[in-house]
């Protein structure tokens, strides 16, 4: 039996970064907002306090904060010729759950995409010709929104987080010490960059000697204490090196808990229901309007929550799945190329170079999620791709996110994976090695997509999401090219040896790469090739908005959170200023 609840103005499905930001914006506009989160309440002092936050076994290896795949998972295959099988242990990406979700256990790497990233198709086509963007069945397209439109909202997120960094481009003027390739910023970062430790410093020196343009990684691990515009406070980071996969016990990593919740939870027009999983969005018979959502609580009781606005603010994979389960938009068909929901799923193309010294003690246990010196010379279209056979790029970062004893011990080429020889190599190299990260873009491809699995179902009997994905020639060429550039910097540091960890072969769900899944509910200029408009509003059901990286038509060579947040603020501004006055499509077709 389903209990129908009192109607509200807006219901948020999922309560991580996008849910928190949208909830705050809608509540400030006076709406009655209910957030539904499938996972538990999470708070600093009770769930990841300083006394136990740095527990690598509990959080990293036993997945304490991640989605429990015995209740719900997804199936994966590389191509349509294969049978997709369920992920029974998280690997390549670590799905979040609970209040704050991935915003709790991210590294805090805060990037803006390049202006040209938002015109991936037209820009590359203009510079390199039509073939560059249609080879290998690439299905990339422009976003329908520009960097200039998003700049004020990138700025809002920086002010929210207190991002630590050094601007490289202030209103068009290139600034020494920052990233000269970035789009123009309207103002300097709220807090100065983190102090760079030895390894990132060496990386920066040698990168500069090769003519590259090093700068400190912009970070949500704060360099000093900060009070944001919502009155929420962050402390200065202590460089403990437990960010990614961990919650921060020191209030020094920007997260929904540290930046939005203290303000939002005081609002009388906001309520949060935890351990409530939304099963589907309910639509009117003509499928042109959502009436609310049906959810089930942890006691197994089912509820219908009527709402004027339905905001899909879960992770990209859940948002796309909910649309497919609810009949919102037309599912993508990879054979005909028609349909949009699930189309243009993309990821991130990661590789790295390990550097081993004999004569330098790097103390990698002094780390932070975004403690790095970076070069952006080979990202996006910051360099000439003529004759290279690919588009896109990667940033290269001399990064020390930590020296976690199980996960982060680098051993040289040829070292066995266990046993006495491994122990000797680990002991010899732990203090004298670090890793250069190559964080690459991933273009979309007509064969990479998301749909519902025909075989496997979750505990509620709903079909699982099926991911069909593989890296393409474009991604491999890009990754190899930029990995070679990273190796040049590594060699210039004059180490004993280096080890190249190239991205080889097909995508595998086993080794951890990154939780940067994108696409499937992409934004665009018209309903023929996108699911949502530039304000993340569903073309087909205008009172449903789908937030998050699902909107990315392809993925740039940067961490997605900054852009996810900027798109959320951009959508929120349009909802609160235009949509509430005249509910209906915000972009006419």
């Amino acid at each position, binding site marked *: 039996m389903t209990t129908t609840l009192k109607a509200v103005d807006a219901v948020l499905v999922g309560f991580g970064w996008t849910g928190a930001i949208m909830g705050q914006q809608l509540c400030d506009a006076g709406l009655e907002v209910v957030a539904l989160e499938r996972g538990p*309440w999470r*708070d*600093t*002092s*009770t*769930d990841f*306090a*300083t*006394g*136990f936050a740095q527990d690598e076994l509990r959080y990293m290896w036993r997945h304490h904060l991640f989605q429990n795949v015995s209740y719900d998972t997804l199936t994966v295959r590389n191509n349509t010729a294969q049978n997709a099988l369920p992920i029974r242990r998280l690997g390549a990406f670590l799905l979040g759950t609970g209040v704050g979700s991935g915003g709790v256990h991210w590294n805090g790497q805060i990037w803006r995409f390049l202006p040209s990233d938002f015109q991936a198709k037209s820009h590359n086509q203009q510079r390199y010709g039509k073939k560059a963007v249609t080879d290998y069945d690439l299905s990339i397209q422009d976003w329908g929104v520009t960097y200039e439109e998003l700049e004020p909202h990138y700025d809002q997120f920086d002010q929210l987080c207190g991002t630590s960094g050094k601007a490289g481009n202030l209103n068009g003027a290139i600034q020494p010490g920052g990233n000269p390739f970035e789009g123009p910023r309207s103002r300097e970062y709220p807090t100065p960059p983190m102090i760079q430790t030895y390894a990132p410093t060496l990386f920066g020196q040698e990168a500069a000697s090769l003519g590259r343009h090093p700068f400190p990684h912009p970070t949500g691990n704060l360099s000093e*204490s900060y*009070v944001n515009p*919502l*009155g*929420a*406070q*962050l*402390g*200065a980071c*202590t460089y*403990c090196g437990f960010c990614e996969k961990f919650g921060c*016990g*020191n*209030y020094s990593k920007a997260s929904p808990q*540290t930046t939005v919740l*203290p*303000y939002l*939870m*005081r*609002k*009388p027009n906001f*309520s*949060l*229901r*935890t*351990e*409530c999983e939304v099963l589907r969005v309910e639509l009117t018979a003509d499928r042109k309007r959502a009436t609310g959502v049906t959810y089930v*609580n*942890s*006691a197994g*009781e089912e*509820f219908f929550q009527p709402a004027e606005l339905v905001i899909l603010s879960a992770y990209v994979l859940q948002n796309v799945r909910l649309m497919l389960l609810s009949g919102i938009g037309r599912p993508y068909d990879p054979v005909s190329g028609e349909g949009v929901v699930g189309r243009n799923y993309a990821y991130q193309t990661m590789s790295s170079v390990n550097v081993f010294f004999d004569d330098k003690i790097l103390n990698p246990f002094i780390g932070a999620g975004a403690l790095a010196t970076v070069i952006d010379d080979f990202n996006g279209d910051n360099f000439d791709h003529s004759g290279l056979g690919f588009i896109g790029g990667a940033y290269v970062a001399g990064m020390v996110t930590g020296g976690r004893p199980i996960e982060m011990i680098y051993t040289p080429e040829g070292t066995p994976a266990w046993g006495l020889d491994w122990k000797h190599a680990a002991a010899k190299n732990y203090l004298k090695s670090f890793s250069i990260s190559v964080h690459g873009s991933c273009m979309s491809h007509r064969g990479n997509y998301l749909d519902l699995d025909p075989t496997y179902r979750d505990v509620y009997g709903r079909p699982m999401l099926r991911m069909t994905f593989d890296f393409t020639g474009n991604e491999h060429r890009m990754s190899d090219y930029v990995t070679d550039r990273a190796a040049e910097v590594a060699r210039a540091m004059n180490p004993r040896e280096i080890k190249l960890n190239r991205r080889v072969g097909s995508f595998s769900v086993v080794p951890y790469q990154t939780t940067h899944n994108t696409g499937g509910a992409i934004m665009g200029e018209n309903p023929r090739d996108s699911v949502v408009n530039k304000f993340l509003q569903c073309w087909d059901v205008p009172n449903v908005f789908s937030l998050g990286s699902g909107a990315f038509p392809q993925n740039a060579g940067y961490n997605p959170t900054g852009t996810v947040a900027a798109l959320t603020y951009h959508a929120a501004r349009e909802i609160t200023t235009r949509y509430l006055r005249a509910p209906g499509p915000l972009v006419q077709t």
Partner: protein
Amino acid sequence: MLTILAHPAGALAPAGILSGTISDATPNAEQLRRGQYLVAAGDCLSCHTRAGGEALAGGLALSTPFGLIYTANLTPDKQTGIGSWTEQQFYRAMHEGVDDQGINLYPAFPYPWFQLTSRADDDAIFAFLKSTPPVAYTPPADALPFPMNFRIVVKVWNLLFLDTAAFRADSSQSAEWNRGAYLVNGLGHCGDCHTPKNFLGGDKSHQAFHGARLGDWVAPDLTSNERTGLGSWSVNEVAEYLQNGRNVHAGAGGPMAEVITYSTSLLTDADRHAIAVYLKSQVAAPSTASGAPDIGTMRRGAAIYVDACSSCHLDDGVGQPRVFPPLGRNAMVQQGDATAVEHVILAGSRIGTSALRTTPLTMPSFAWKLSDADIAAVSTYIRNSWGNQAAAVTAAEVHDLRKALHLDADRLTANSGDRL
């Protein structure tokens, strides 16, 4: 399903009843606004709202040395609240400590302080309370042992301790000082916690604001003592603390967190400044001497400090001002009674919030991690380092407090101090 309507910090969102806007169209708007402000000044919500209950509906158990007393329903419900009270009856409650039937109220209700409040202020408070949503709720009966269960004893108590003199301005002091005195000794009832009590629960009035044990906590010294009181705080720093629950010296945890959230954060800058001026004029309480702590204990405490405390309070106890309190020259750390230090380490502590500082910064519980001896050693260490000086803490004291706080009961999460 868990619906979190209130701040999970355990505090109700104060926005509703205390900061809701009263429109000009409301009859009597001026007086209602004044009443709303004075309800904040009197910190009525902290006691008259039980966990998970409606604002002002009462039912919170106050644990007094004489037994359990449940707070009354102040909403205008006719049967269970004050809906049928008259202005005159309310005035008598505030001034003589008797209810609408003329029956004596226990002085857990701070009428010995409230009697200083002017008639006009009382009437405004009453008008505001009458305008709040009525809630039908009868608090549980008090659980007081003989002879305290006979209200007649309160009459005797009143004869001994109730000063019924109206507020008299001190013409030798500024108007601001007098405003501070009116708030501190009247509605603010600061001395209710911060002034030591005799065995009958009356104020030791010659030790006003010297600080006192308060159940499982300590209300610290508010005099000008440089080590244990407000001597090293400026007037503005006191005002900032009252506004935001945090300043460069300290964060407001324990019962003071609620005072910040429901009362002082909602006052005007002028009133907070007046309170600070008055408090800063208090003559310093005498310092108590303490012997040098045992070297072995100090070494042990230092090692525990590095392991357990330094990630927030940093090396040398410097902290991060306004975020994690500095521990050196910290008044709370140096109170003669170390209960608050032990309490914070055992159970953790969450600080009060304001509209300007919304984060309820929280120290986690260390009860699961540190033994009684560990806590005694680290407490002794921080009480005698970085310019601090205070008596050593014994493991037996910590053991007793751990039992009193029921910290061996099941927890919300395996490592937390929150009780189920």
